[in-house]
């Protein structure tokens, strides 16, 4: 039995009829065509599917869509607020080469945003801890950690 839900994603309101067992990840990707959020392991182990719900990072693969009604959901598509201008986190990821295959990137960026909203001046150790739930097999994390540190500085300006 489908359920009517209203989701607020990246400032847009969507009314949908969905099965109550569907995850936020499925609804974002399949119903809203927001495929920037990836599905890696589906178990909450890899962090590739990370999105923000009311400003806090969650694994969208473990979150039911019906459970986040009325909450503010932010995905990678909502990072850059307007047209051409990228978010400082995105700019820093490009400048520092913090991207290789790109499959972990959206989740990394959302974890970084989660951190920087709560802690605008994180230490390197705090950055490492903040992304410890996001696996990346390509980079060894170095350039990602650098990029998040630099994004913190950019966001203060």
């Amino acid at each position, binding site marked *: 039995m489908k359920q009517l839900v209203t989701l607020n994603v990246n400032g847009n309101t969507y009314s949908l009829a969905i099965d109550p067992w569907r995850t936020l990840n499925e609804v974002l*990707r399949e119903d809203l065509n927001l495929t920037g959020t*990836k599905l*890696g392991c589906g178990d909450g*182990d890899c962090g590739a599917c990370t999105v923000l719900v009311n400003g806090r990072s969650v694994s969208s693969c473990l979150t039911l869509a019906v459970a986040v009604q009325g909450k503010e959901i932010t995905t990678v598509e909502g990072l850059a607020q307007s047209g051409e201008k990228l978010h400082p986190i*995105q700019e820093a990821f490009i400048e520092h080469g913090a991207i290789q*295959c*790109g499959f972990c990137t959206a989740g990394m960026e959302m974890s970084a945003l989660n951190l920087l909203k709560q802690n605008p001046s994180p230490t390197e150790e705090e950055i490492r801890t903040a992304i410890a739930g996001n696996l990346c097999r390509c980079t060894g994390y*170095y*350039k990602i950690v650098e990029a998040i540190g630099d994004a913190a500085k950019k966001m203060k300006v």
Partner: protein
Amino acid sequence: MEEYSVIGKRIPRVDGRVKVTGEARYAADYSMPGMLWCKMLRSPYPHARIVSIDTSRAEKLPGVKGVLTGKDFNGWTWGWMPKTRDEPPLAVDKVRYLAEAVAAVAAIDEDTAEEATELIKVEYEELPGVFDPEEAMKEGAPRVHDYVKNNLSWDFHMDFGDVDKGFGEADLVREDRFETGRVITGYLEPPAAVALWDSGGITIWAAKQSPYFVYRHLAACFNLPLNKVRIIQPFIGAGFGGTKNDSLAGDFCSVLFSKRTGRPVKFVYNMHEVLMTCRRRHNMIIHNKMGMKKDGIITAMQSKVIADGGAYTAIGPLTMYLTGSISTLPYKLPHFRHDAYRIFTNNPIGAAMRGHGVTHTRFAAEIQMEMMAEELGIDPIEVRLKNAITAPYETINKVTVHTCGLKEGLKTLSENPKWKKRSGGSPPEGPLSHGVGISGTAYLGGARQRGHQSCGAVVRLCEDGTIDYLTGATDCGQGSDTVLVQIVAEELGLGVEDVDIKRVDTAVTPCDAGSYGSRVTVLAGGAARNAARDVKRQLAEVAARNWEVDPGDIIFKDQRVYVKGEPEKAMPFRKLAQVACYAGSGAVIIGRGYSQYGIEELDFDKGIGNAGTSYSFTSQLTEVDVDLETGFVKCTDMVIAHDCGRPLNPINVEAQNQGGAIQGMGQAMYERFAMDLGKTLNANLADYKMPLSTDVPNIELIDIITDDPNGPYGAKEASEGSTVSSPPSVVSAIHDATGIWFKEQPVTPEKIVMALKKKRE
């Protein structure tokens, strides 16, 4: 040294923007109206005869549009070489590993497809399995393939010089048994594809690292000419060899379902399927024997390698070739013998992975060399410097090295203050023991396989002076698209923003061998350079006619074109493009280029010749802290001196060295598939531990510039060297901290605690 405008600069990735915004589409991001979902039914047994399959209940489930079993592929099988085509898309007569695909369902949605797989009734007759390669080699062991005696999948016997003579000349001879573990490639993007069969043939959007393998497999399987098979490359969520370099049950089944239903068909494996079934690094047992003179000079080496091949051959013969043919680098071996056996078992399939083949035997040789140096009282760097080759050099099996930065790298590390912190056997103060280790390794770049080596590039000039660049080489994350664009821009005096690279589309892009063996920068890079030069030549002729000068005097730089020594004769590149394109009918300017490796044939059966175009050399220092009570190892620092010839994009080279070293560290310290009777016990990313952001050491990177003559702008490889150098360097550091030589990867805390306990007793 020539001054470059774009090459060697810290150019951000050309695909950076689409990746940080989420715009980049990966295979699973594609969907189409009317699309069906394909799901696999997998075997619950590692070895069983298939007695019967009843699909009738699945077919009757509403929403199911088709069911396939092995028989639907009419006996077709595939493999890396003609004589090793042993793998069917779906198991036919029997299953040979746990979770092998037995049947497939196509349905209107994923849930229905999954539900239908549970309605398929398969009757199995369970067979005794064999899971240990040494057991599988014995007479009377269960046969994985009925026609293969002693489960011998492949063997190589390489014999150079006279090892007995070499051992006779030695003052010290050691024999040790080493073992390397089963490791996952570890990409986060599960394999996926959307397939469409229509009157134009097959079109498939598939997550492939080397799409031209799959292109040939699909043409062969469905008996279509190659111009009816179109693979369009989405962005690829990493590869690292193995699975994404090959075809999968899902590829064949979704194509056949689309043929039968006329609808697009999609599959996405879940991570559990990936970890249970996908190709993984071969687990290898290496019996190594080395002879050394008192002064540390190696007199001979003999290796016997036994690899767990799993159920099918896949690319295994090449793996085994590389275990031996590259063993003669980077240390001089006057006498060398290598016997390699790849053995079928009822385990998932062993295949290529970053550091392919080389990581296993290099680990054994590095550790054994250092063990012997220790016995003889020789410093670990000293023994390496004594035996290291110096370019130019030809090994005993005719591997030719034109540039080699190994000695320079090792010397740099020996002067590093971190090397001075080495304990050298002095006891620690307290429970934490500090250790410093070293390694010096080699890897091939610009790999050449048997068979298909075609590698071309097309550079198309647009009339506004911009460039469309077509390559068959796939960027699966390593950054090759950026480097290839830099090459085209450099040759034409343009900026990277003037050159647009298209994703691989086999209907449009020129053929390429694939993204394996660190070959793209060296070979596809050479093709890109040649194609750009072809355009430049055509444009120079137009400009030369215009100015009545010699075409050789036309300079392309900073988006301008001018005559050497006559700066008043100049125009923007854009203007010249217009002049050239409007010069008359047929004035279409397209540049073609091919890679030319210009090296001799290799003798695959005997292990003679160059499997690569050039060879990178990596020297690595590693520092660890070992908790002597818990066995827990914290890797704190690495210093990597890498000779990639010349870094064409320093950001990318740094990232490759960092990522490769961390992948190697995981393999050395904790990564492994835990197996029990063919079952992968840790088939999830919590229990299979890959390094996290909090686990990685500081890394200092040093470029050793050697400018190889066989690579574009002096480049060699940069993507696999540190994966090979990392495990021996980490294990050498653990030895320095504990006084114990660990010969089996991974060196887990349990092994350390047990060994320390034994040492105390």
